[in-house]
C-alpha cells in the first residue's frame, strides 16, 4: 500500500489535538480536508476516538489505589526476600556438588588401589559396634586422615566464597 501523506496532515492533527477543529481553523484548511482523503480520514478517526476517550474518562475505574499500593509492597518484599536467600541457596548447592565430586573421586581412587577401605568396612560387625570409634581412628591412617578434613574444609570454604561473591553482586 502506498503511503500517501499530505503536507497539511500535521496541521490538521495539531488542530484536532488542541480541540481547535473545525472552528479554530481557516476556511482553506477546512476546504482542503473536505477534498483530501488522508486528512478527512484523520479527522473522522480522531474525532471518533476522542469522543470515546472523553466518555471513558468519566467512568469510575474499579479497584482501590491503596490496596494496589500495599499489594505492590508485599510483592516487593517477597522479591527482596528471594533475592536475599538466593546466595545462600547457591552456596548450599555448590558445597553439595563439591562434596559429591570429591567423594566420587575418592571412591574412584580407592577402587584403583584395590578397595583397601572395603576390607575395613567388612570387619565392622555388630559385635564390634561398641569399639567403632577406636577402630575407626586406627584404620584412618595416612592419606585418609588428611583427606576427610580436607574435603570438609574445601566444601566449607568453597560455599563461603560463593556466598560472599553472590552476596556482593
Amino acid at each position: 500500500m502506498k503511503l500517501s501523506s499530505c503536507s497539511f496532515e500535521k496541521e490538521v492533527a495539531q488542530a484536532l489535538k488542541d480541540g481547535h477543529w473545525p472552528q479554530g481553523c481557516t476556511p482553506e484548511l477546512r476546504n482542503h480536508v473536505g477534498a483530501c482523503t488522508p486528512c478527512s480520514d484523520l479527522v473522522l478517526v480522531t474525532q471518533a476516538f476522542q469522543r470515546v476517550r472523553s466518555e471513558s474518562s468519566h467512568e469510575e475505574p474499579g479497584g482501590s489505589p491503596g490496596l494496589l499500593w500495599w499489594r505492590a509492597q508485599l510483592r516487593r518484599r517477597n522479591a527482596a526476600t528471594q533475592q536475599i536467600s538466593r546466595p545462600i541457596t547457591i552456596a548450599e548447592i555448590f558445597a553439595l556438588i563439591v562434596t559429591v565430586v570429591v567423594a566420587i573421586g575418592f571412591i574412584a581412587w580407592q577402587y584403583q588401589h584395590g578397595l583397601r577401605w572395603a576390607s575395613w568396612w567388612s570387619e565392622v560387625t555388630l559385635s564390634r559396634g561398641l569399639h567403632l570409634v577406636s577402630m575407626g581412628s586406627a584404620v584412618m591412617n595416612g592419606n585418609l586422615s588428611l583427606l576427610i578434613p580436607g574435603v570438609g574444609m574445601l566444601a566449607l570454604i568453597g560455599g563461603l566464597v560463593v556466598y560472599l561473591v553472590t552476596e556482593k553482586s
Partner: protein
Amino acid sequence: MRKKDTTAEYAIPNVEARLISRIDEPSMDSDAFAGFYQRSAAGLRAYLARVSGNPTLADDLMQESYLRFLCATHPEGGEVNYRRYLYRIATNLLRDHWRRPRAMCLEDIPERLLAARDGMSRVDSQATLDPAMALMRPRDRQLLWLAHAEGYSHKEIAEITGLRAGSVRLLLYRARRKMARLLREQAADRSRA
C-alpha cells in the same frame, strides 16, 4: 467494640523492611500513587478494554500493570513519562496474554472471531466506534488508540509498543484508512436503515 486496624496486617516487620530497603526504595508513596491512579486509571482501562475487547480482562491487566509499575524503578521526567511507562507495561501484558499457549497468537486471531466475541461482551453497544474496532486487528487497535485517543506521537508509540517509528507510521496509516472506511460504511448503513 474496638475497631480492628487492618493496616497492621500489611505492616512490614522491621527486619524485612530493612531487606527491602537494601533492594531499592519505593519511588512513589501511597498518596502520590493514589493521585496518579485517579488521573490515569480511566484512560488505561479504556485502552485495555478497547484493545482486548474484554472488560474483565481489562480490569485484571490494569491491576497487574499498576502492580508492576509500582514494583519497577520509574523513569525520569515526571507524570508524562510515568504514564507512557504504564502504557508500555500494559501493552506488554496484552501481548503476553495473546501469546499464551491457550490463547491464539496476536496476529493469527481471525477478525470475525474477535468481532463475535466483542459482540457478546460489549456493554455499550450504542457506541459508534465499537463495531468498527471489533473488525480491526488487536495491534491496529493499539496503534489507533494510542495515536488518536491518547495523542501519542509515532516515536512515543514506538517506545510503548516496541515497534520502529517508521513501521508505526506505515501501520497507523493503513489502520486509519481501514477504520475510516469502516466508520463511513457504518454511517451509510445507519442512514439507509
